[in-house]
């Protein structure tokens, strides 16, 4: 299980995360990305973090409850 966080100071709304995994990330009207779900076991969260040009997405592996 992964906890997903987006640093709002780094996010520039580039949108690579939402392109990769629209179920997990959304671009809001202000142009920054937000997480649709705080936690997920979808491995694409790792791809989204790697794809972010600003390095704004951090993924923390957590123990499933």
């Amino acid at each position, binding site marked *: 299980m992964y906890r997903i966080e987006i640093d709002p100071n780094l996010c520039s709304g*580039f949108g690579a995360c939402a392109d990769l995994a629209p179920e997990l990330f959304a671009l809001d009207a202000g*142009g920054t990305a937000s997480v649709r779900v705080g936690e997920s076991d979808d491995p694409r969260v790792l791809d989204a973090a790697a794809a972010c040009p600003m*390095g704004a997405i951090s993924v923390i592996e957590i123990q499933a409850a």
Partner: protein
Amino acid sequence: MKPPRSVLIVGAGLAGARCAETLRAEGYDGRIRLVGAEPAAPYERPALSKEFLAGERSAGELLLRPSAYWSDNSIELVLGCRVDAIRPRPDEVVVIATGARARRIRAPGADTAHVLRTISDAVALREELHAGRRLVVVGGGFVGAEVASTATRMGVEVTMLEAGNAPFEATLGVDVGDVLARRYRAHGVDLRTGSAAVALAPRRVSLADGTAVPCDVVLLSVGAEPVRELVREGVVECGDAAGGPGHWTSAAADGVAAARRILGLEPLPAQPPFFWSDQFGLRLQLVGDTRAAARVECEGSDDSFTARYFGGEGRLVAALAANRAAEVAGFRRELALAA
């Protein structure tokens, strides 16, 4: 199109890493070897001139992927291995993703000046930057401007030698260049425009106008050149080695594109170029290509502004957001439609 039995990727930077990742993500099940000259697993270079230089991020925090990722995906990572020659195996595709090397000027002492391209370059530079020391940045590149910004925060006295009339005038235009010049000087940088270094002695840089700048450390920031010694017919080239613009997103996209070519997949739609730089409290984010610009429209203040670049026929070709991250997505959409 039948995929090859194995893929050998030379160069474990962003483009090479993205190529390997994409091959696996698209279901390729042959052998993948990713060979890097540096000892570190694929990492983020943009932070080298910023958080890493300042000691705020460690080498481990720069990794593109957690270390287990490569073995989990059966990607053989061969590190610390400089490739001199290649003899492909039967049914093997060779990808050249060897990146770029920092350019040096032709001047006495240029061989021993610092450049910043790799983790070890950054470590060597960091060891010499202490409060009160004097750094001369030769050249008007983005790496040099970011190092100057980081160094001033560390209490280093910085002199920047810029050949043109203002920083990034050629790329971003004279209005933005003037804003940046004011900003550098307000942060205590001794910015010398229209100046060129002719000799770099260990403790002084001599200029073309006959003056000299005493210093403790010299950094060359005069761009990069592609590493192409291994390029030959039949290889797949990608990233900076293939003459890319040296931007993070271009190298990443090019690595993906190389993998898709190898697998015979359709190319993904092209995205407008994107580039960013953090310097002196400004986050500059540029979408598009300013080389085609004939006219610039600026709006805002020195601390937060946008610049729109229009081509000869009045079409938007690029847009710059300075401390206006929220505008980037809109620019990106606008320029994607214009392309």
